[in-house]
C-alpha cells in the first residue's frame, strides 16, 4: 500500500491543477464559441499557434509577459480565419475546423524551420512564467487546498478568474445573453436588432484568445520552450471537457479538473510503477467520458439549438 500512498497526496492534486489548466482555458473558450452557435474543433490548432508565438516572443524579447501577450493575440487572430470562413462564407463549421488544424501544423513547422533552422523544439526561453509562482498570503496556509489552489503560477490563477468571468459574462450580462441567443435562436436575436454575425464573431474570437492563452501556458509556463506536438490532443480533450460539461463554463471547468486528475494519476503511476496497468487506460478516460455524456448519461449535455447551424441574412433585392 505504500506504493499507492506515494501517489495519493497533495502533489497529485497540484499536478491535477497544472495539467487541467490548458484544458480548462480552451474548454471555456469553446463553451463561449459554441454557445454563440459556431462549432469549434480547431482548439488544437489554435493552441499550437498560441504556444509557438508565445515561445518565440518570449525568446526574442526575453520577457515572458510579452510572450504571453503574443500567444493570446496570435490565437485570437488565427481564430478569425475560422470566423470568416464559417460566418461570412458559410462554410461547414467542422470542415473549417479540420482545415484550421491542418493549417496550424504547417504554419508552425514552416516558421520553425525558417527561424530556428530545424523542426522540433525551439531554443529555451531565458525566463519562464513559472518563475513568477507566488503564494497568496493567508489562503495558501489552508491545509491541502492552500498549496493546491493558492500557491500557483500566473496563468493558473488567470484560469480560475476566467472561469468566473465567463460564468458571469454568459449568465449576467446583456452581451452574454445576446451571445447565447445567437446560438439558440438566431432569427429572434436578429429580429430585435442585434447582429448575429457580430455575436458569433465575438464568440469565435474570445475562444481564440483563450485557446491562445492555453497554448502560451504549455510553452512558457509549464515548460520553457515550444515543441511540435506539444498540444498532443489537448484541444480535443478540451472539446471533450466542454461536451461532458454540458456546454457550460462551470461544467467545463469541473470536467477539465477530472480529466487533469486522470492524467496526473496516470503520469504518477508510471513514475512510481505501482500498478501494472497500461497508462493508456487512463489516458482515454476523457474520450470515454465524452461518449458516455453524449450518449445521454449526463442529462444536461445538450448542445445549443442552433449550434453549427448556418445563419444567412437574406438581404432585400439580392
Amino acid at each position, binding site marked *: 500500500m505504500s506504493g499507492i500512498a506515494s501517489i495519493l497526496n497533495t502533489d497529485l492534486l497540484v499536478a491535477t491543477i497544472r495539467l487541467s489548466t490548458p484544458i480548462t482555458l480552451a474548454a471555456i473558450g469553446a463553451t463561449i464559441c459554441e454557445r454563440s452557435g459556431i*462549432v469549434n*474543433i480547431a482548439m488544437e490548432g489554435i493552441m499550437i499557434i498560441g504556444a509557438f508565438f508565445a515561445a518565440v516572443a518570449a525568446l526574442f524579447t526575453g520577457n515572458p509577459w510579452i510572450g504571453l501577450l503574443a500567444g493570446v493575440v496570435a490565437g485570437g487572430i488565427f481564430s478569425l*480565419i475560422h470566423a470568416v*470562413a464559417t460566418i461570412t*462564407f*458559410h*462554410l*461547414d463549421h*467542422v*470542415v*473549417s475546423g*479540420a*482545415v484550421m*488544424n*491542418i*493549417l496550424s*501544423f*504547417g*504554419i508552425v*513547422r*514552416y516558421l*520553425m*524551420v*525558417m527561424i530556428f533552422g530545424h*523542426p522540433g523544439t525551439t531554443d529555451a526561453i531565458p525566463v519562464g512564467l513559472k518563475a513568477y509562482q507566488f503564494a497568496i498570503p493567508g489562503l495558501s496556509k489552508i491545509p491541502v487546498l492552500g498549496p493546491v489552489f493558492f500557491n500557483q503560477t500566473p496563468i493558473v490563477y488567470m484560469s480560475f478568474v476566467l472561469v468566473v468571468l465567463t460564468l458571469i459574462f454568459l449568465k449576467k450580462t446583456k452581451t452574454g445573453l445576446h451571445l447565447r441567443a445567437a446560438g439558440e435562436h438566431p432569427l429572434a436575436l436578429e429580429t430585435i436588432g442585434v447582429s448575429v454575425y457580430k455575436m458569433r464573431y465575438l464568440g469565435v474570437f474570445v475562444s481564440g484568445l483563450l485557446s491562445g492563452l492555453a497554448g502560451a501556458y504549455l510553452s512558457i509556463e509549464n515548460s520553457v520552450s515550444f515543441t511540435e506536438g506539444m498540444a498532443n*490532443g489537448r484541444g*480535443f480533450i478540451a*472539446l*471533450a471537457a466542454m*461536451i461532458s460539461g454540458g456546454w457550460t463554463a462551470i461544467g467545463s471547468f469541473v470536467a477539465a479538473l477530472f480529466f487533469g486528475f486522470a492524467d496526473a494519476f496516470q503520469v504518477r503511476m508510471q513514475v512510481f510503477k505501482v500498478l501494472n496497468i*497500461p497508462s*493508456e487506460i487512463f*489516458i*482515454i478516460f476523457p*474520450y*470515454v467520458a*465524452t*461518449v458516455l455524456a*453524449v*450518449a*445521454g448519461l449526463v442529462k444536461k449535455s445538450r*448542445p445549443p439549438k442552433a449550434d453549427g447551424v448556418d445563419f444567412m441574412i437574406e438581404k432585400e433585392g*439580392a
Partner: protein
Amino acid sequence: MQITKLKPLFYTIIVLLALVGSVMYFASVFSGILLILAAAGLYFVYYGLTEGKGASKSLALSFLKSLLIPVIGVVSALLIGGIIMGITGYNPVTAYKALFYGGLVKNWSVSVLNAAPLIFTGLSVAFAFKAGLFNIGAEGQYYVGAVVATFLGLHFNMPPLLSIPIIFLVAGLLAASYNYIPALLKVKTGAHEVITTMMFAQIARYLSSIFIRGMGGGSDGPHPYVTDPILKSNWLLKMKTIFPSANYRVHIGILIAIGMALFVQYILTRTKFGFEIRAVGQNKDAARGQGIKVGRNIFIALLFAGFLAGFSGVNQVLGLDHKLYENLNAGYGWDGISVALLASNNPIGVIFTSLLWGILAAGGQYMSRTVQTPNSIVEIIKGIILFLIVAKYIYIHIGHKFKNKKKEEREAVK
C-alpha cells in the same frame, strides 16, 4: 459509317492501353505515362470522328466545368504558396521545380505509396458524406484495421491467395464494427457522429499502443515500440514481380484502392442501396416520405465508412511496413477528409485528389532535401487549397443567383 462498326475494337484498344499504362505508371515505370497519353489521344480522335460536334462539345464542357473550381483552387494556392516562399526568402521557382520533379518523375513511387492509404480513408469520408454524415474518425478505424491486419499477418500461415483476402475482410469488418457504437448512438439518441467518431479515434490511437506492445513490441524494447514483422506470405504482391524495373517498395495496394473506388462509385450510382444513401444524405424528410428507412441507412453507411477506412490500415501493414509502429499518428484520417472534400465526395475524384496529395507530400520531401526549402510549405498549400475549394459553395451560390436572375428576365420577356 464504317468506323462505328469498329467501336468495340477501338474501345478495347483504348482501355487496354490505358490499363497497362496506368499499371506501369503506378508501378513507377515512368514510361507508362506515354501509353496513357496515347490512349487518351486515341479516345479523343475516335470520339471526334464518330460523335457529332455538339455532343462532344457539351461533354467536354461539363467535364471542364467540374474541373474548373478544383483547378482554380490548386493553381491559386500554389501561387499564394509561391508568394509566401518569396516573402520569407526562398526561391519559389526552384522550389516548385524540385517539388514537381520529385513528386511526378523522380520519386513517383513514393507519391503512389502515399496515395493508396489516402484513397481508402478518402472513400470512407466521401461515402459517409454522401449519407450526410461526417466520419471524422477515419483515423481510428485506420488503427483498428492496422492492428487487426498485424495480428492476423503474424499468425495466419496460409497460401497468400487465401490469407490476404481474409485479412482484408476481417480487418475491414472489425474496423466497421468500431463504428457500431457511434452509429447506434447517432440513430438512437441523435448524438453527433463528429463528436463520437472523433473520441473513438483518440481511444483507438491510445489503445493500439497496448496491442502493439503485446505483439512483440515489449515494454523495454526500442522506442517507439514496434511489432514483430508479419509473415512474408502475407505481404501484398510487389509490382516488381510484374515489372522488374518498378520500384521495390511499390505494391499492388494502389490497384486495390482504385478497384475499391470503382466499387464504391458503382454502389452509389447503380444500386438501390446507393440511391437510398444519397436520398438520405440530401434530404432526410423527403427520403422518409418516400418510404426509405433513414435510421437503417445511416447505420449501414457509418459501418461501411469504417470498413473502407480499415482497408487503409491493412494496406499499409501488408503492403508497405510489414509491421506496426506505436503512436503512428499517421494523419490518414485528416488527410482523408481533405481528399474527399477536394473531390466533392466523388469516389473517382478521390483517386485523383489522393494522388495529388501523394505527389505534394513526396515532392515536398524531395524539395526540402535538394533545395533546402521547408517541406511544410506543402502543408500550408494544402490548407489554402482546401479553403479555396470548399469555398466553392460561394461560387455555386453566386451561380444560382445569376441563373435565377436570367430566368426571371426571360420570363419577364415572355
